[in-house]
C-alpha cells in the first residue's frame, strides 16, 4: 500500500498497544522474580528395607536439576505460589507473542 493511502492512526494504535504490552511484560517479570521457581514432586528414599516418600521442589539451575526437600506443610503452602508463577509465565508468553505479532505487522522500520 502506498504511504499516503495508509491510515496512520491504525499504526499508532498498534504502537500504543505494543507499548502497553511491554509495560505488562516488565511488571510480570518483576513479579515472577519474586516467586519461587520449579515444580512439586516426590522423592523416594529407601532405608532399612523401608521406602520413605518426601515431597520436594524440583528446579533447574543452569544445567543442573536441583531437588529441594520440603516438609508436607511447606509443600502445601508453596503449591498456590507455584501455580501463580506458572500462570504469570503463561501471561508473559502471551504478551511477548502479541508484541512479536504487532512488530511483524508494523515492520522493522516502525519503532
Amino acid at each position: 500500500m502506498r504511504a499516503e493511502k495508509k491510515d496512520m492512526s491504525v499504526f499508532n494504535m498498534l504502537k500504543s498497544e505494543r507499548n502497553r504490552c511491554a509495560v505488562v511484560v516488565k511488571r510480570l517479570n518483576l513479579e515472577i522474580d519474586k516467586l519461587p521457581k520449579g515444580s512439586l514432586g516426590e522423592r523416594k528414599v529407601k532405608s532399612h528395607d523401608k521406602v520413605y516418600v518426601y515431597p520436594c521442589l524440583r528446579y533447574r539451575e543452569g544445567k543442573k536439576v536441583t531437588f529441594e526437600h520440603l516438609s508436607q506443610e511447606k509443600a502445601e503452602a508453596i503449591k498456590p505460589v507455584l501455580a501463580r508463577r506458572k500462570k504469570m509465565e503463561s501471561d508473559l508468553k502471551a504478551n511477548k507473542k502479541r508484541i512479536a505479532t504487532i512488530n511483524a505487522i508494523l515492520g522493522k522500520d516502525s519503532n
Partner: protein
Amino acid sequence: MKIICPQSPFMESVDELLRELDRVDFFAHGLLIGSWPMAIYTQHFELAYGLMTNDIDFAIENVLKIKEGKPLPELLERLGYTPVQDYSGIETFLQGTFEVEFIVHRRGGSGPSAVTVPPWKVAAQPLPFVDLLFIRPVSVVVDDFNLRIPAPEALMLHKLIIAQRRLGSDKEAKKEKDLQQCTALAEIVRVGEVKQILLSYRLSKKVRTEITDSCTEIGLSMHQLGISWS
C-alpha cells in the same frame, strides 16, 4: 439513553467478565470505560471505528457511598485473572494479554496514588475528569447481562480534554487514538446533550482551551457539536 444489543459486540472472555460484574451489581456504581464502549457505539450506530486495545478499564463513582459488595479480586481470580500490584499500590488484574484496571475520580491536581474501594477490596487509580463520564450514562443490555457505559457526548468531551494531557513516551499515539475516537463520536453526539453536560459541569479556562485545541487539531466545528462557553 438505553441501548439493546441484538448480539454481543465483545469476545466471549469479555462477555464473561462483564456478566460476572453485573451479577455482583458492579454497574450500579461503575462504568465500562476506555476504548471498549466504542465497540457498543460502533455496533449500535454503525460507526466506522473498530479498534480496541486489550486493557479493560472500569470507572467507579462515589467510592465512599459503596457500602456493600463482594470482593472483586476473588471474582476476577475465579475468571482466571491474576492480581498484580505496582509500586504505587494500584492493582491490575492480568489474564493473558488482557489487563483489567479500576479508576476513580481525582479531585484537584494531586492526591494518593491509589484509592481502595473497601467493599470491593480493589485499589483503584485516581484520575481527573472521571466524574464527567458519569453524567447521564447509557444503560446497555447485552444478551443476558446489563452494563453501563458513558454517554457518547460525555465520552467525547472527556477525550477532547485528556488528549491534551497525555503523558509518557507514547503520548502522541494515545493522543491520536483519543482524537480519532472523538472524530468517530462527533457523528453521533446530540447537540442538546452536549449543551446539557456543559451546563452541569464546570470547566476551567485551561480545560476550555484544551477542548478548543483538540477540536481545532481534528477539524471539528465546536458550534456544530454544541460546544460554547457563553
